[in-house]
């Protein structure tokens, strides 16, 4: 299970077991989606599978996730999402209304984000061999700009913008699954991110890199980027918003919100001189209204992520080695 947590084990699974079988220049881009140039048009292609328990949770469901997850990966290349495929793996005995509810939600999500679902497939597995419903989607988007958005472009001095509070998706799903209750309800942040990204690009903002925060949370995304870019990143703890119910749930479960999954948050690396403008544009969109600057790429050459707290103490963020285990002795 640790292999799916988005931490160190996932990383090793990909780099040691999977990637060697399919090595090619596009795969080596090691980004959320691959950019291909079949003709004069640059298109972007990605795929993702969705496994979540429960299928429906406050703030979203598996259908929305399956659309937004793939759309968001396309958006992180700065592409306009266009087409989607959809494969359903159904467990025998899944109630028809449940499937219908999930598909209706998928349809709504596709319409809202302007993608066309153009192909698909359905398989049924025996009872007990699936968690009700798994969905795989693949997506194609088109790049309408010439900007290269990739980790290598992160430059010293770039500011890191975060699009909103973190940890809501992971904690909402977990609270629902475990039957936990909190003063104010926990809702997933599940949302499409193409709009704020395209708003930035259409305004002519130079964007060096984008990354949506999914499994492994903000910390893992930062560590991965620091490593791919070969740069030191410094973030301010106080600038990273965490809602009260997320904080409470994390305290109860002993989790660090920095490592908790999100489904509607991203970070953007923008040159400092365009950051004020970029921030204003993001804040003008509904899903990124709470955007803020959380840190910057430093001049340091050690690929690592430093989180500074208000009294100047500096913590190093690393990938999670599987689960979070206590070290206090």
């Amino acid at each position: 299970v640790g292999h799916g947590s988005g931490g160190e084990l996932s990383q090793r699974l990909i780099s040691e077991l999977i990637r060697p079988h399919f090595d090619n220049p596009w795969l080596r881009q090691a980004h959320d989606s691959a950019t291909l140039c079949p003709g004069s048009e640059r298109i972007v292609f990605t795929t993702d599978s969705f496994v979540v328990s429960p299928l429906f949770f406050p703030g979203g469901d598996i259908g929305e996730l399956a659309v937004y997850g793939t759309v968001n990966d396309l958006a992180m290349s700065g592409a306009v999402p266009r087409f989607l495929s959809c494969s359903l793996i159904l467990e025998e005995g899944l109630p028809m209304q449940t499937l219908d509810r999930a598909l209706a939600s998928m349809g709504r999500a596709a319409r809202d984000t302007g993608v066309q679902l153009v192909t698909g497939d359905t398989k049924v597995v025996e009872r007990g061999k699936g968690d009700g419903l798994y969905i795989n989607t693949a997506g194609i988007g088109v790049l309408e700009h010439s900007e290269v958005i990739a980790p290598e472009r992160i430059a010293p001095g770039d500011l890191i913008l975060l699009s909103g509070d973190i940890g809501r998706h992971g904690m909402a799903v977990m609270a629902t699954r475990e039957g936990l209750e909190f003063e104010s309800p926990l809702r997933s942040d599940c949302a499409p991110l193409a709009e704020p990204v395209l708003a930035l690009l259409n305004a002519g903002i130079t964007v060096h890199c984008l990354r949506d925060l999914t499994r492994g949370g903000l910390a893992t995304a930062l560590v991965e980027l620091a490593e791919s870019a070969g740069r030191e990143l410094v973030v301010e703890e106080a600038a990273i918003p965490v809602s009260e119910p997320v904080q409470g749930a994390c305290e109860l479960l002993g989790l660090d919100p920095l490592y908790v999954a999100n489904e509607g948050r991203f970070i953007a690396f923008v040159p400092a001189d365009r950051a004020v403008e970029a921030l204003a544009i993001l804040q003008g969109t509904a899903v990124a209204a709470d955007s803020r600057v959380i840190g910057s790429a430093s001049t340091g050459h050690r690929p690592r992520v430093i989180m500074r707290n208000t009294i100047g103490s500096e913590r190093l963020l690393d990938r999670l080695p599987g689960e979070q285990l206590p070290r206090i002795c």
Partner: protein
Amino acid sequence: MTTERLRIEIGGLVQGVGFRPFVYRLANDCGLHGWVANDSRGVQLEVQGSPSGIREFMHRLTRESPARARITSLGSKPAPVKPAKGFSIRTSRGGEAAAAILLPDLAPCDECLREMADPANRRFRYPFINCTQCGPRFSIVSKLPYDRANTTMAGYVLCPECRQEYTDPLDRRFHAEPIACPVCGPRLMLRDTRGNRLATGDEALQRAADAVRDGGILALKGVGGFQLLVDAASSPSIERLRRRKRRPEKPFAVLYSDIGLVERECHVSPLERTLLCGAERPIVLLARRTGSEAGVAGNVAPGNPNLGVMLPGSPLHQLLMSMLQRPAVCTSGNLSGEPLCSDDTDAITRLGGIADIFLTHDRRISNSLDDSVVREVDGGPLLLRRARGYVPAPVELPPEAPAVDLVAVGADLKNCPAIARGRRVFLAQHIGDLDNRRGLDAFEQTIARLRESSASPDDKLVCDLHPGYVSRRWVLKQGARATGVQHHVAHFFSCMAEHGYSGPALGICWDGTGFGSDGTLRGSEFLQWDGASTVKHICCLREFPLPGGEAAIREPRRQAAALLFALPDGQGALREFLQSNFSAQEGRNLSRILGKEELAPRCSSGGRLFDAVAALLGLCQVTSFEGQAAMAVEHAAQGSASGRCYPFALTAGANGRVLDWSPMVNALLEDQRRGITTGERAAAFHNTLARMMLAVAEAAGIDNVFLSGGVFQNRRLAETTSALLRGRGFMVHSHRLVPPNDGGIALGQIYYTRCMERCGSDAAEGRSVCV
């Protein structure tokens, strides 16, 4: 008359202790010619003269050597006779692997203190006075051999008078490497929080003392780094320091000007007196006298019957304290868990928000190190933090272990790496926690320093098995050969190494949480070592859940709930406990996660049992610093001499025996209903743990028992257990100069690896090769 010449090589603690002048005087006394020099291995010398003169020389060489010297090896062989030219002291050469032992930093000697207090002396009130018997050593050395040129004193050109003392073999400052005076040596400086220079010399000192007296927070550049000082009697000042340092409750240590004042505040045993006044000048944990809290405000060590006390460790501290004329809180100049600041720029940046004023000087600190902490336990010293005054003295391993070159990285908290060269293990100074950038930087620098002092291309790296340890991940990134040693096996072997022991033994290793070879969280292991090749886990506490992992450690009340949850028929007690210590919603949430292993992993931890009991006794529900709950239980027991003991069961489990605590918890709850005092229940809890340990020792039937792990920082438990075991004929060995907590882990990692190399075994408990 025949003439002979002898070449002599001496190893051990022979540099920086006035050894060469001693040899010079002795050679002259015996009418011999020749020379003496320091080298990277120790002292080399040649003597030439009559056979009887040489005999006398050899006889007196070991007998009359300087007080601080410790000779560990002495070799001699005949050499060709040369023209006689008198006896000389030669300047040192560097060269091959440095095996000479360097001295730790030493508190001012009586002679220097007398000079400093004498208005006629040219070093009257000079805060950097020192001689061959005292002063900074390890903290100012940048490389070996120990010569002025290799210390941070290199830049100070000696004035004629100092030069005279330094070069006169009959002067007590002959080759005192840090020699200095007001004319040529380091100077004091007072700075504000922006680094502006406010005053120098005596005026700086005077104004710093005034600032403390007026309630200010002074950052003082001490021997190994900055310290923060405030008036120990002023609770508002202490409150301010607590707020700024974000340290709401953790006790502070207090610096006194002399032992007489300490004795008015605390009980001081003869051993504690020796520890307080020794050249190491550690913080000594003392029991406070009841009702005499005049000089020390209540918020220095809230609710704590003990007080950490220290006497001045340098002439600067001595001067400041005698001007201040009152005890001062003295705490590390760092942010919680980080290494301390050691240079001005760093201190002003990092401590600028905490201190009001900086008393500093221009002598650079090369190796920064914290104050050591020691406590009397079971009639001997027990180091809780090993740093200034103790580092870099090595630990000598038993001779039979093969001498593989090793670097052990220790654990992640209270980190302290170590290096093994031959039979000697050099433990670094206490570094702190590795979860912060500065801690990790200090860790890397310290390892680099350890290795450059005696380079070896074949270093094998040793680390813990915990997959989340930064230290382990660091090792795996190095790409060198690496071995992992299970946490409690390392504790066990650390204690055996300290005693130079290698035979069959029982290790009782109780602590917070260590990662077990099977992936479970342990902290109450009984380990059996056959003296040859195998360590076996033979017993631990019955498991209970750790709800929310690390979060549970900050909330003893959760641990108590977990214990009641795991208690057979504990539902009623659990419900009651949840109701009185949690909100309804918190209680419901907690009940939901208690039974789920992925949210509440099982553990068998002695430290967590202490936490649970602290909460059950109503002593501590939520903590603000590590070890707080366990300390509260120990303190509660301190007032009770009760010998009562609760029942427990020793049963068979899947992996050895299991100590079942449930009868004890039931009895504890029953006592509560009967209104037995907290103190008596806390005492009975300690007594029960000691009985548990005895029961397992008797079942194992091994004579030599080693006690290790952070739980044995608890004096009550350590002493009760030792007495009980000794009473039944066991030989009990406790830590002395290596901490029982994770600060001692690296030594155990080294010794265990050496023992495994010796037997070529890889099947033992705790062995796991890193992949």
